[in-house]
């Protein structure tokens, strides 16, 4: 029995993880006809919140109104349930591997935790905006889109990683 610290550093073989993820994606497409996603749930909750606070605004605004309909609640959405599942699944995996600990910040030794949090928020914000333009995030557009051979998905994958490499030099202090 290895100690906990060592065990928590052990991850799946990336190729094995990839095959599992690929089979899961295939199963998802086989069952539901579309791929996996992540940002959809956040969008649903924002639409719900805005609709709760300012219903007339939400109904008349071009973007919010797209996701509001009379026959079902915006939160009663496939992706919302899937996202709840992501939390549960990740927690389970973390628990088994001993990675679930109290809140901590992971950052490069060259930056302060505060800098890390500022950049995490900024990055999240940009990713949020980008995911709406791309009609999906890394999982919804890039991964599922590439697997179903949608041109948009393939482009999204190339562009996300391409621009990541393009900007990597400027943000190297954050990571290495």
């Amino acid at each position, binding site marked *: 029995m290895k100690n906990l610290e060592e065990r928590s550093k052990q*991850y799946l073989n*990336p190729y094995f993880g*990839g095959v599992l993820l690929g089979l899961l994606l295939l199963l998802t*497409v086989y069952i539901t*006809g579309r791929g996996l996603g992540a940002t959809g749930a956040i969008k649903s909750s924002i639409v719900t919140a805005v609709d709760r606070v300012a219903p007339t605004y939400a109904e008349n605004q071009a973007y919010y109104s797209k996701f509001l309909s009379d026959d079902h609640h915006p939160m009663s959405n496939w992706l919302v349930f899937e996202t709840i599942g992501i939390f549960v699944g990740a927690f389970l995996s973390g628990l088994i591997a001993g990675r679930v600990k109290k809140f901590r910040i992971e950052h*490069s030794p060259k930056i302060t935790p505060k800098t890390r949090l500022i950049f995490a928020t900024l990055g999240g914000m940009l990713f949020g905006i*980008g995911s709406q333009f791309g009609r999906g995030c*890394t999982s919804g557009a890039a991964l599922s889109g590439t697997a179903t*051979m*949608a041109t948009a998905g393939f482009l999204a994958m190339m562009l996300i990683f391409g621009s990541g490499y393009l900007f990597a030099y400027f943000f190297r202090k954050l990571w290495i």
Partner: protein
Amino acid sequence: MGPLISQGYINQEWNFVIALLLGVAFGYILEASGFSSSRKLAGVFYGYDFVVLRVFMTAAMVAMIGLVYFDHMNWIDISKIFILPTFLTSVIVGGVIMGLGFIMGGYCPGTSFTGVAIGKLDAVFFTAGLYLGIFIFSTAFPLIEGIYYGGELGPVTVMETFGISRELFAFLFIMATLMAFFVVSLVQKRVKKIEV
């Protein structure tokens, strides 16, 4: 046969239960592969850890070739699969912004959820940022509607775009992926290892 739900083989009521179960599996695999660590994820851009590229490309490859065979076995009606519609301007703008967000935040949405689940505070802030970003986008939508609907091509597939068959594209994708795996394994050897 498939897709099972839209073909009516599975009742709509089970839809959300299935969503939950698939989500659990998704979260589990992401976390177990190490996607809950932002420094591990960012490694793909600096060459010290290629786990993102390996998992991502393998998954895309497996699902893609799986769909090719499922289609040939008539197990799935490929015409009933959701194909992400292409809006050229929008996807280019979105892709570049997402890449920038990735390198700054170190997560992507799905992986940040797994980070939150095991107690990473930076993942919590990233997720908060996602809320903020989508809120900003939605509220500013009237101003950026032109970009969002720009360059519409409809739900086209790469087969239509490049004029090649599904099988050939899958084959080329596999070749490119195997090549990429080989190259990154060489790169990783030369880059200074960083313990994360």
